[in-house]
Every structure is written in structure tokens, then in C-alpha cells.
């Protein structure tokens, strides 16, 4: 790891800790910094509400937000590397579309929120398997075929979502489906953390181990295979990890757009394309970004803003800035 990367990594870890702490302090319910420390250090009854809000509301949702940011950023990076296309996002193979259908079905059936997550995860994963199956029908192993299959299956899932919405009661479940689709960490509990943390943690650990090798995979089949990599195995392993990350995150937070597209671009602007450098920075930057988004979504209004609204606005602005910077770089 070079000096520049190390500096950015250390700085971003520091920022992550600051932002994480800020997320525990800042919110719709005002807690002063002295009260914050009294609430978490002492057991005084006078600070029961503050303590409860910090430990039962803000802590789990901040962790889930961080993990979601990490998961979606990493999975966006992986898809962009494997498919050699910087405009791909985690939903390329239809994970988010499938997860949306799963969640919608669970909501229409009136199931509890844990089952909404389970359905979302399962259908997200099934959608990716369906995409791979459809790609095999074309009998063409190129990445383009997989992308095309993803578009087809994703389109089918979007249509299916419309059908599910049609059957939803417009006064009850339809609004719930719409809100879920826009993303929220409002229902996050420590149970979510216990499920999401091992998944994201293990995937990140595996990716850090493989980080240098992923660069070779990113060269494409011809070069990777002739250099000695079992390209098909690694491609599907990487897609599998990315899909697992995306499906898990979407299952617990709903559909959150832009982050999987924008964070890898920001990171590459700073450290270039080497996944040894970009993976660790996607972890920190993704976590920071999502926690900031969550703070913005929950702190200023009585009702929480949907996450996609905040990521959409921020993401669009950031992406335009990236394009301007890239254009200036290319001009030089």
C-alpha cells in the first residue's frame, strides 16, 4: 500500500469514528454532549430516555447504516471491476428488483419485518440465480450476456412488483411497500446487527485477502486466464460475494440507490484502480457516507426522509463533481 493510500485510509478511519460518534449524539431528540456522556456512563434515571435512545435507537441503526454503506459500496466496486464497466451498480443482476418483490409480497401478506427481510433476501438471491440461468440460455459466456440477462430479469421483476402493488390495499400496504422501496433504517435493531455484521465482516475479510488477485480478474477472461487465474471460478465467486452483500443490505434497509455507483468512483479518483487500495477505502468511505445520509434522513424532520431521496440528491451532485474532475484530469 503506498503512502497516499495509507494517509487516506488512516484519515478515513478517523473520520468514520468521528461520524459514528456524531451519529450517536445527533438526532431529532436533542442530547447535549455532557448529557450524552452522563447517559452512557452513569445509570441515573434522569437520563433513561437519552440512554435508551442512544443504545436502542441510534446505536443499532448507525451500525446497520455503516454496514449497509460498506456492503453496497464494495458490491458496486466488485461489479464495476468484474464487468469492466464503471457505470454498473449493485442492481446490475437484478438483486434489488428481486428483493423489492420479495419484500412487497411479505408486506402484502402482512408478515412481520423480519420476514420482510427474509423474503427480500431470498428473492434477491433467486433473481441473481435466474439471471445466471437466463445468461446460460444464450450459450455465450461473455460478461455482456450476463448484463443483458440482468436487464431482462430485472425488468421482469419490476413488472412483477407492479403486479404485487396492484394487489396491495391502497390505504394500507401500498404505502408500506412504497416506503420500504425508498429505504430506511428506522426499524433497525441489534438483531439486524447480529445478522448483517458477520455477513459483511466475512465478505470484507475474504475480499481483503483476495484484493490483489481481483485486479487480475478485472483484466478480463483472456488476460486473467492466460496469467493463471481460473477466471470463471473467481468471476462467480466475486459476483456471489457482491450479490450476498447487496441482498443482505437491501433486505434490511430497503432499496438505497447511488451509493454503489458513486463511492467506487470517489475512491478510484483518490487511489486509482488497484483493488488492494480501493477495497479498504470503499469500506471506510461507504460507511461514512451512509451514516451521514442516515443522520440527515432522521435528524431534521418529525418523519424520517427516505434514504433514497437523500442518497439520490447527494449522489447526483457528487457524481457530477466527479465527472468534472475527471474531465479536467483527461484534459491534462
Amino acid at each position, binding site marked *: 500500500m503506498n503512502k497516499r493510500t495509507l494517509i487516506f485510509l488512516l484519515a478515513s478511519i478517523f473520520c468514520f469514528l468521528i461520524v459514528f460518534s456524531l451519529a450517536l449524539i445527533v438526532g431529532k431528540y436533542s442530547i447535549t454532549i455532557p448529557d450524552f456522556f452522563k447517559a452512557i456512563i452513569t445509570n441515573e434515571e434522569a437520563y433513561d430516555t437519552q440512554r435508551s435512545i442512544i443504545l436502542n435507537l441510534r446505536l443499532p441503526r448507525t451500525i446497520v447504516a455503516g454496514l449497509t454503506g460498506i456492503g453496497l459500496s464494495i458490491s458496486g466496486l466488485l461489479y464495476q471491476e468484474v464487468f*469492466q464497466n464503471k457505470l454498473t451498480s449493485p442492481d446490475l443482476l437484478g438483486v434489488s428488483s428481486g428483493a423489492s418483490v420479495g419484500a412487497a409480497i411479505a408486506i402484502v401478506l402482512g408478515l412481520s419485518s423480519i420476514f420482510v427481510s427474509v423474503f427480500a433476501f431470498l428473492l434477491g438471491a433467486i433473481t441473481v440465480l435466474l439471471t445466471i440461468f437466463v445468461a446460460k440460455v444464450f*450459450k455465450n459466456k461473455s460478461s455482456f450476456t450476463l448484463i443483458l440477462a440482468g436487464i431482462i430479469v430485472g425488468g421482469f421483476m419490476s413488472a412483477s412488483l407492479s403486479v404485487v402493488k396492484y394487489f396491495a390495499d391502497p390505504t394500507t400496504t401500498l404505502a408500506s411497500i412504497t416506503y420500504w422501496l425508498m429505504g430506511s433504517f428506522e426499524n433497525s435493531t441489534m438483531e439486524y446487527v447480529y445478522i448483517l455484521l458477520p455477513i459483511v465482516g466475512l465478505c470484507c475479510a475474504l475480499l481483503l*485477502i*483476495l*484484493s*490483489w*488477485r481481483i*485486479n*487480475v480478474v*478485472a*483484466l*478480463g*477472461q*483472456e*488476460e486473467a*486466464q*492466460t*496469467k*493463471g*487465474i*481460473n477466471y470463471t471460478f473467481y468471476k462467480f465467486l466475486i459476483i456471489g460475494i457482491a450479490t450476498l452483500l447487496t441482498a443482505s443490505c437491501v433486505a434490511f434497509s430497503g432499496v438505497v440507490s447511488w451509493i454503489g455507483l458513486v463511492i467506487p468512483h470517489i475512491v*478510484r479518483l483518490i487511489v*486509482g*484502480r*488497484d483493488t*488492494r487500495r480501493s477495497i479498504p477505502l470503499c469500506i471506510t468511505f461507504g460507511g461514512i457516507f451512509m451514516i451521514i445520509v442516515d443522520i440527515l434522513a432522521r435528524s431534521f424532520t418529525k418523519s424520517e426522509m427516505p434514504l433514497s431521496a437523500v442518497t439520490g440528491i447527494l449522489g447526483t451532485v457528487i457524481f457530477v463533481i466527479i465527472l468534472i474532475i475527471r474531465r479536467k484530469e483527461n484534459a491534462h
Partner: protein
Amino acid sequence: MLIDVKNLSFKYSKGLPTVIDNLNFEIKEGTITVLLGLNGCGKTTLIKLLAGLLDSNEGIIEYDGVDLKKTSIKDRSKKFSYVPQKNFAGDDFFVKDYLTYGFVNSLKFYESPSKEQLIKVDEVSNELGITHLLDKKMGKISGGERQIVTIASCILQDTPIILLDEPTSALDLKNQSLVLSLLKKVANSGKTIILSTHNPNHASFLNTNVILMSDGRIIKQGSANDIINKEMLSGIYGNNICYAEELEYKEVSFK
């Protein structure tokens, strides 16, 4: 004999025409072999079959007497390295990082290049005169420089055989000269080079073994002197072909 190709045939899919039709040839160690022919005669397909990127339908390719179909991807990559005709996937990689990817088959999945390997990158870059390119991105260097960098990566991969698919097709005259001269130098160091080209001048320049191909078949194989003549080439390139002294205009080539 290093490579022995026997009765090799290939078609991309059932119902499609045969692209490689019953090829038989041998390649000796330490030689340069040029696969010469028109576009679409099967040169690239043959290179890919040798590289293991395609599987033949019939016939075998033996390396030191061992059928390559029984060789793993990793082992094959220790025998053959490959320079593709075009690759834009690596545009954003720095040259110094790209060169290290040649070491991947000698590393475990959790490893990245060692200090010794990084020193080797510097040494090879020095030898090939590309040190000034190390901190540039692959997409920002010229076509010729890129080919040289790719060949350097193959040298670092340390395979006995280097396969090159039309290495000079997109290059200007100066870069063609650079690349072909490099290949001569690399062959002199003991490597076996197999390259495909549609330009007889390149075969002539390299003055080495030539396999003349047409429609997936070998028309003739032999030395450059045997193949690069009007009689042999007119059957492939048409009756308009002639030597430079016969031209009514000045043709520029390179020494």
C-alpha cells in the same frame, strides 16, 4: 520438439463452419514461428487454442509430449503467456501494477507480489527501456509502448512460450519496428515466440519459421525464404502482390 499439434480442428459451435481444419505442425524450442494469412484464416483462433482460451473439438496439442487438455489453467499459464490483440480492460491500471500481474500464477490466493518480485519488475523495465512508463496508466501510453509493456509482463510471467495475436496490427511503422526487434531479442534469450500476422513483411523481417494459413488450413510451413515469395503468397493475397523493387512508388519499410 516443444509443441506438437496433431489433427487439430475447431468450430465455434455446431452448425457453424470449421475455423481450424485438421492442422498438423511442430514448434521447436527457442524459435520464432509466424502464423501468416489473411484476416479470418484462423490465426487468432489457433493462438487462442494454444493459449487454452478455446478447447479444440478434435485433435491434440502436446507440450513436451503431454496433452495440454489434461493441464490445469495454472500449469498452462506456466508454459504459455499471451499478448492479446486488443485489451482495453486494463486502461486504468498503472504500468508498474500491471507488470506485477504476470506473477499471479506463482502466488497463493492471499499473496501479493514480494519485494523480490518488485525488484524484478524494475530490472525488466530497465532492460526494455520502459522505466519512464512505470508511473503512467496503461490507457495513457502509446500502442507500441503498451505492447512492449504487455510483452514485459509475459517476460515476468517467465513462461517458455509467448503467444502474440497480431501484436503490430494497430501500430505505426516506428512502433512495429520496436516491437518486432524486441521479439527478436526475447527469442535470442531462449524463449519460444509464436505470433500471428497478416503482414508478410513482418515474417520477412523476423526471417524465421512461417506457417502460411488459409481458410483454417496450413498451406505451407517452412522458412521465411520458402514462404515469402510471389508464387506462395499470390495464392493467398492475390495476383497483385509484388516485391518492393517492382513498385512504381517508393514503399517505406524498416530495416
